[in-house]
């Protein structure tokens, strides 16, 4: 059809980045909840939680907080996509000679950019609150890679929500369970402190392996088998969500 996929994606990405710049509150809002959680856990609950390690509690919980940041940030992707569909601009794009996948990729890349900024803000606050790591550049890059993969995987889930939602609230409600998932994982307390079935769930859901991997990278510990489990989950979710999103998109535009 057209050979302008990259160019069109770039043009549309700068459009939706502009949306974010015009309402930076979306990034602030995304960062506020995780920061509040961080304050709450570090200064209120943290003392009572026995992590079984001599890491400071903020070091222990930061990986989970970062995942919560992203899980709440991607709701805006669903929201913006839904508004495009509602407002008719989506149909205008569809009736123009532009690469069709560009419309979705622009939202995905925008989500990546916005979430990286939010994550950066949260890490900055964590540093002020005493987070410390001796992680090497390579370990930081590995953390960044995992967070990017996590963002991409969840963003495609958000695309599904945005494309199929009937109401604005529906477009973002899907993210609540995702935000909640880290609480039933190793993010805030060791899973062996949980009762049987809960512990089983916590140990076998994706967040635990991702949190453990990031935690090990920050603590300069070996990542063990967790990294492979984490990568398998992330790639699995990414592929399935992407396939679903594209299928829904095709149905929508044909």
């Amino acid at each position: 059809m057209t050979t302008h996929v990259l160019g069109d994606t770039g043009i549309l990405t700068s459009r939706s980045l502009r949306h974010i710049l015009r309402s930076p509150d979306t990034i602030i809002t995304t960062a506020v909840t995780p920061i509040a959680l961080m304050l709450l856990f570090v200064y209120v609950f943290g003392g009572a939680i026995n992590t079984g390690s001599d890491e400071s509690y903020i070091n222990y919980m930061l990986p989970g907080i970062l995942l919560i940041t992203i899980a709440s940030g991607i709701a805006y992707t669903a929201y913006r996509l839904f508004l495009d569909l509602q407002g008719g601009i989506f149909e205008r794009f569809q009736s123009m000679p532009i690469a069709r996948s560009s419309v979705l990729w622009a939202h995905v890349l925008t989500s990546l950019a916005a979430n990286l900024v939010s994550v950066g803000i949260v890490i900055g606050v964590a540093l002020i609150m005493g987070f410390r790591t001796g992680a090497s550049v390579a370990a930081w890059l590995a953390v960044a890679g995992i967070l990017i993969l996590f963002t991409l995987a969840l963003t495609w889930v958000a695309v599904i929500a945005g494309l199929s939602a009937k109401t604005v609230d529906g477009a973002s409600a899907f993210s609540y369970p995702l935000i909640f998932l880290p609480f039933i994982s190793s993010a805030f307390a060791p899973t062996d402190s949980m009762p049987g079935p809960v512990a089983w769930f916590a140990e076998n859901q994706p967040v635990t392996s991702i949190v453990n991997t990031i935690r090990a990278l920050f603590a300069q510990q070996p990542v063990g088998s967790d990294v492979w489990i984490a990568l398998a989950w992330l790639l699995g979710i990414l592929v399935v969500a992407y396939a679903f999103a594209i299928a829904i998109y095709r149905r929508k535009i044909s």
Partner: protein
Amino acid sequence: MRERAENGEPDMTTNQALEPAIRVQGIEKSFKDLHVLRGVDFDVRTGSIFALLGSNGAGKTTLVRILSTLLKADAGTATVHGFDVAAKPGDVRESISLTGQFAAVDEVLTGRENLVLVAKLRHLKNPRAIADDLLARFSLTEAGNRKASTYSGGMRRRLDIAMSLIGNPPIIFLDEPTTGLDPQARIEVWQTVKKLAGQGTTVLLTTQYLDEAEQLADRIAILHKGTIIQNGTLAELKRLLPPAKVEYVEKQPSLEDVFLALVGDTDETDTADDDRSYGTVPARKEPR
């Protein structure tokens, strides 16, 4: 340029000098049990204004969506600018622009940014110059740096149509372009449409209003219960009506008359699509 698509239907109409800009044959479309279009046929001559008249829910938008490749028909064929909409949607999109029933502008962006965005997506050179030119033509220069969300309905519609003109597509679809506009804005849109057709653009517009079709269209087709029940020039359609009776009715001024009297314009060709402050734009003096 205007080569017939390879997969064009076999019946080459010989009695027509020009291939029609739009050819619709036996188009059907259902949504579940609702048979919205039950075999729609018509041709639109290149460079003409064609009005598709139908009441609310008649299927006008559905047809426009099919012709602009947003929706697939269940049966029948349609060619736009010589390209089959089902087989060559990419080529169709290169040849058309759609102004949907509801203004499709980016509310967060300014008017100028909206125009620049479309110009870039159409891969045109000098998107900024194109935007400035259109802002001037549509009397939006002053509002150009304001967010589209602050625009009035008429301004938004003008911006919407301006966005559709970028790249000078040979065929334009306007789906109920004046629904919801005040009389002044309505006349402005009419002027724009006439000017477009004057430049050779083929316009297919849908409307619920007979007077709009009367004002603008070279041909009028009436879509009712899924088919075209009448298709002809205004004069032809009028002939179908019972002969005119002469009745004496005291003419009450319509709201439109009152409005125009108040704003000081009685001659509709003078209410061009620009403010009084832009009274010297040359194009406005050649209304068709």
